[in-house]
């Protein structure tokens, strides 16, 4: 896809920075909505959806970049965490009398905020355990990344099975207080929890950025994704890096799952699995192993999906993400931001 490379070259020549690209895109979107070519509301909702996808895709790309395999169970980690929060809300917190909802402008109550860190922790521990028990053994054996991916398919199925055994297949919901949508200018309506969702996503991304650029283990993670063999030979503790990669990845997936459950106001055992295509589309778009790319890719996938409903049957939204995925894989597998092989 030389168009993109040509754009990049041109951009480099006139010294365009990411900020310039961003402002350009924003301008184009505003113009298009003024001309009624696209509805701004869809773009905004797409960004909210994109925030949720981003939480998932950033974690997914970390694992893909460091451990070099497609973690098919990632979606089901989202599901598991969402249900763990449901459990914490309904059982221990409920019995402690902490049942309030409608915190500030949001539909959920502060108990959700109490439950969330636990789900993150449990997800991280579960991921590390699965790595030690399963994936590390396959790596030591020299199994190809396809076999490891296949194994993660088994893990995905098993995780969903656990969720279904414990909670059954019916739709569940976090205790919530119905709130009105917010009316914003330019005919834009956003759901009440939108600010929470995008806020959490932005804060988490910022935290990840700090972690990767300022902490020793974060830099080691970047180094390992960059060149695994060199990392080992340099003396980097690759087992430690692997552990942290899983912890971050699962932790972010956990947050994504809870955000999704809040946004959709429902939980289903298949919620994470259905999210896999948008997640992978975002990862490939942004370049495997690049969390910033995964964030950008997530926004693109989210917005494209929502905007497409102007012209296509909304039931086909998942196909849009898939189309993006397929096109990227065929034309530019290294993604928009990926520059290396």
């Amino acid at each position, binding site marked *: 896809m030389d168009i993109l490379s040509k754009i990049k070259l041109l951009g480099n020549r006139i010294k365009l920075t990411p900020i310039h690209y961003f402002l350009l895109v924003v301008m184009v979107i505003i113009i298009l909505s003024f001309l009624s070519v696209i509805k701004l509301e869809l773009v905004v909702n797409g960004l909210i959806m994109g925030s949720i996808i981003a939480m998932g895709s950033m974690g997914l790309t970390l694992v893909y970049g460091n451990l070099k395999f497609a973690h098919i169970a990632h979606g089901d980690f989202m599901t598991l965490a969402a249900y763990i929060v449901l459990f914490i809300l309904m059982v221990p917190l409920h019995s402690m009398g902490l049942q309030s909802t409608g915190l500030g402008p949001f539909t959920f109550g502060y108990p959700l905020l109490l439950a969330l860190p636990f789900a993150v922790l449990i997800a991280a521990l579960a991921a590390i355990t699965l790595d030690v028990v399963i994936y590390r053994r396959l790596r030591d054996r020299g199994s190809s990344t396809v076999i490891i991916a296949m194994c993660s398919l088994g893990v995905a199925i098993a995780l969903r099975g656990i969720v279904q055994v414990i909670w059954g297949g019916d739709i569940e919901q976090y205790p919530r207080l119905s709130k009105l949508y917010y009316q914003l200018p330019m005919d834009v309506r956003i759901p009440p929890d939108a600010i929470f969702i995008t806020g959490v996503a932005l804060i988490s991304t910022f935290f990840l950025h700090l972690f990767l650029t300022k902490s020793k283990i974060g830099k080691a993670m*970047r180094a390992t994704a960059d060149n695994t063999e060199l990392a*080992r030979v340099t*003396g980097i503790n690759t087992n430690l890096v692997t552990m942290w990669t899983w912890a971050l990845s699962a932790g972010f997936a956990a947050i994504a799952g809870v955000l999704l459950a809040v946004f959709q106001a429902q939980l289903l055992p298949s919620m994470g699995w259905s999210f896999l295509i948008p997640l992978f589309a975002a990862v490939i778009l942004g370049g495997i192993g690049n969390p910033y790319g995964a964030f950008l890719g997530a926004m693109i996938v989210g917005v494209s999906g929502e905007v497409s409903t102007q012209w296509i049957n909304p039931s086909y939204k998942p196909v849009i993400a898939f189309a993006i995925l397929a096109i990227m894989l065929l034309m530019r597998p290294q993604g928009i931001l990926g520059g290396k092989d």
Partner: protein
Amino acid sequence: MNLLNIAKITAGYGDTEILHKVSLNIDKRELVTVVGPNGSGKSTLMKTILGIVKPTKGNITFQGESIAGTPTQEIVRNGISYVPQAYNVFTSLSIIENLEMGAFINSGDPSKKISEVLELFPDLVDKRKVKAGYLSGGQRQMLALARALMLNPAILLLDEPTAGLAPMMIEAVFEKIQLINSSGMAILLIEQNAREALKISNRAYVLAAGHNQLDGKGKDLLNNPEVARLYLGG
């Protein structure tokens, strides 16, 4: 007692044997070069020392202790540093970050050591924050060397450090290598630019088809017509 002693090592990948009963040793402060045609197993030898390839026969001792079968990270921790031939810097990390990674094994603040090491490589100093991927070939090679020095290794293993470099850079790299050696560090060098390497070496080995062929003092091998004909090119 040698600093590093490789005794009759047989090693390879899967079913393919690359090294056949290869022996080599190196003492403190020595600069030892391994020369030989492509495919003779030189790189494999270094990878075996580092524990990336496990030997099926023979033994490797470092500072008197056997290290065959020890995990790579421990070998690095014990004092052997390695610079691979290609892809030897983290291209998406800055020079400083690359050096920090070199010191990963140590806890504590690496900044002092970084300054020390950068004194040896003044060209890298004003580019410290630049991502390694944007450096020239020669600068990358210098960075790769610098990274390996961060842990004050007892032995430095260098795999073809001048490969693909312009003649001026080649000279600069050899100078650096000598400088590092003169500060007391033992260096095991693999080189295609055999002539130049032999000039600065205490001793050298000739490896071909995974077997020891010859060894001796650097100057002797340089002046040996057989060696010159077979391995040093025209």
